[in-house]
């Protein structure tokens, strides 16, 4: 007993003495370590702002988006240095990281890429193309073949600028009309916009006032027009595959109610896509039914997603609803799909009318070994039982996204058809 007590006392005493020794050492070294770490952190900031005399860390006092991890103000007023990261579908869980210096006038003075993990490399010159740009990033072009990574990079720089602008640290630069138009284009016809928010559409020539620019969606879901909107200035008009339109002003407001005339003009400018492809689409739908089924096209269907045709099909006394979509998949290629619903909104047929997995999409060992089983899992689902998670295909994210887009558009179209035809 006595020995046990002695053991406890001795061990406790040694622990206490050691603790005091450590506390004393820590009191001496902690400030020096903190100073060293601050100097090291400043050194990384000085790389992008070599003339800096010191930095004030604004990070704790600001509300930052996920893409901005640090904001430092140069103490003599040269500007700001921001630690930024960006994630794309090619990042594989590791965001690219970079340091951006923005001078007091709101112009990027240096960009230093500190970590790059994307499987597609946009090259060393791309980050440097941002030097000299203001918050409009007007002269920035994306890197062909590396769109996702370069869009992620650009979006992160934009979010860094937004932090400074929202906190009145730098003034926002005015965007040109051309830039405002390119940013508003995706609003009018969301069905032709890819995952990086770029409309995949071909320009059409030969129009006169009030149409100033015209585009046809590559996936046949409609047209986009830039038109002279009178007091609104330039406006963006989207006409879907059924000839139904909507209008947005350049500030992103929906002004459809005030612009019926513009929609009428735009709708008359080009053939209605669903009507132009009626024969082929009708045959595609009819092939899914026994002889005697009556396939009737739906007209004037609303919705601005990737629906390119819709039909009601009467088989005996039963009515079913067929929706053809063309969502954008791998490489922004349109993937044509057919979904047929029964009267209760349950999927009875799901067909891919083009190749499901486009060549080159797989980059890993994972593969969709049985496409038939993959498609069959959706049969019987309704809007309430379907989930986007069911579409996931390991190694083929773009295809999975396209399939999910198809079902979301098809469910929306089914509801609209029910409203139109009952």
């Amino acid at each position, binding site marked *: 007993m006595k020995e046990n007590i*002695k*053991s406890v006392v*001795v061990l406790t005493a040694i*622990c206490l003495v050691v603790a005091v020794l450590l506390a004393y050492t820590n009191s001496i*070294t902690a400030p*020096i370590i903190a100073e060293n770490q601050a100097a090291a952190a400043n050194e990384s900031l000085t790389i992008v702002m070599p003339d800096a005399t010191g930095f004030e860390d604004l990070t704790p006092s600001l509300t930052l988006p996920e893409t901005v991890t640090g904001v430092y103000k140069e103490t003599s007023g040269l500007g700001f240095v921001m630690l930024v990261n960006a994630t794309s579908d090619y990042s594989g869980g590791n965001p690219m990281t970079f340091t951006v210096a923005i001078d007091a006038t709101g112009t990027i003075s240096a960009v230093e890429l500190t970590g790059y993990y994307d499987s597609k490399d946009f090259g060393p010159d791309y980050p440097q193309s941002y030097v000299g740009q203001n918050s409009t990033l007007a002269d920035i072009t994306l890197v062909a073949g590396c769109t996702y990574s370069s869009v992620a990079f650009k979006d992160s720089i934009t979010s860094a600028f937004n932090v400074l602008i929202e906190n009145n640290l730098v003034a926002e630069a005015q965007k040109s009309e051309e830039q405002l138009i390119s940013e508003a284009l995706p609003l009018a016809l969301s069905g032709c916009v890819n995952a990086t928010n770029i409309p995949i559409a071909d320009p059409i020539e030969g129009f006169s006032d009030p149409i100033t620019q015209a585009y046809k969606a590559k996936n046949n879901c409609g047209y986009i027009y830039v038109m002279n909107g009178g007091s609104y200035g330039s406006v963006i008009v989207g006409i879907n595959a059924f000839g139904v339109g909507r209008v947005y002003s350049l500030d992103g407001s929906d002004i459809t109610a005030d612009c019926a005339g513009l929609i009428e003009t735009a709708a008359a400018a080009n053939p209605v896509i669903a009507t132009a492809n009626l024969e082929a689409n009708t045959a595609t739908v009819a092939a899914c039914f026994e002889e005697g089924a009556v396939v009737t096209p739906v007209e004037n269907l609303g919705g601005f997603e990737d629906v390119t045709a819709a039909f009601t099909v009467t088989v005996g006394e039963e009515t079913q609803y067929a929706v053809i979509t063309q969502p954008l998949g791998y490489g922004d290629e349109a993937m044509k799909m057919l979904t047929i619903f029964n009267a209760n909104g349950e999927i009875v047929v799901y067909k891919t009318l083009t190749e499901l997995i486009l060549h080159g999409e797989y980059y890993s060992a994972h593969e969709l070994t049985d496409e038939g089983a993959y498609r069959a899992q959706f049969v019987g689902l309704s809007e309430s039982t379907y989930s986007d998670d069911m579409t996931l295909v390991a190694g083929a994210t773009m295809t999975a996204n396209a399939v999910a887009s198809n079902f979301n558009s098809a469910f929306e179209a089914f509801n609209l058809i029910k409203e139109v035809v009952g």
Partner: protein
Amino acid sequence: MKKCEIFSKGIIKENPVLVLLLGTCPALATTTGVVSALAMGIAATAVLFCSNIVISMLRKAVPDKVRIPCYIVVIAGFVSVVQMLMHAYFPDLYDMLGVYLALIVVNCIILGRAEMFARKNGVIDSALDGLGMGIGFTLALVLMASFREVIGAGTWAGIEIPVIKDYAVSIMTASPGGFLAFGCLVALVAKITSGKAPAKKSFSCEGCPNAAACNKESCETDVKEESK
């Protein structure tokens, strides 16, 4: 034992790395460069020297049943002090050594000398033993690092060596090179000492911290056979 002999035995005759084969993990991990090896050696020497002194001072006060926890607390305390000082005053070396600096706590040499020597001897003898063993450890590390860095990178302590630089065998700075260098140096020391070292008694069951828990008879038999 004479003071001079206590100090010098750790350098070659009972070199902790090349003869007693202790501290192999840091010896392999930190010997990719001479600078990191020297830093590790000095850090371990400082801990060994200080812990040997303190443990020797406490040898009569510490009850036998809690001696290992007491030694560990003392050693961990000194390692933490060295770590903090290095972080504050030599941040580059601190970054270079990384986790291996903290792992000095579990370095067999430190606890081994505390258990085998410091707890049975006076403060001055223990200090000399710690210093000698520390210098022996440092020399072994620097020797091994020199071997690896010169052949593997064509440099010594970061200084380029003409000609060799162009014919560097990079595997020597990788893990296999570490084992190769270690084996060669152990063989070299065995040759130099003509098989007279190691003194088996100093690291057999008598001085082993785990002696009470293991099969003493078979263990000692193994040691005897190996030393033959």
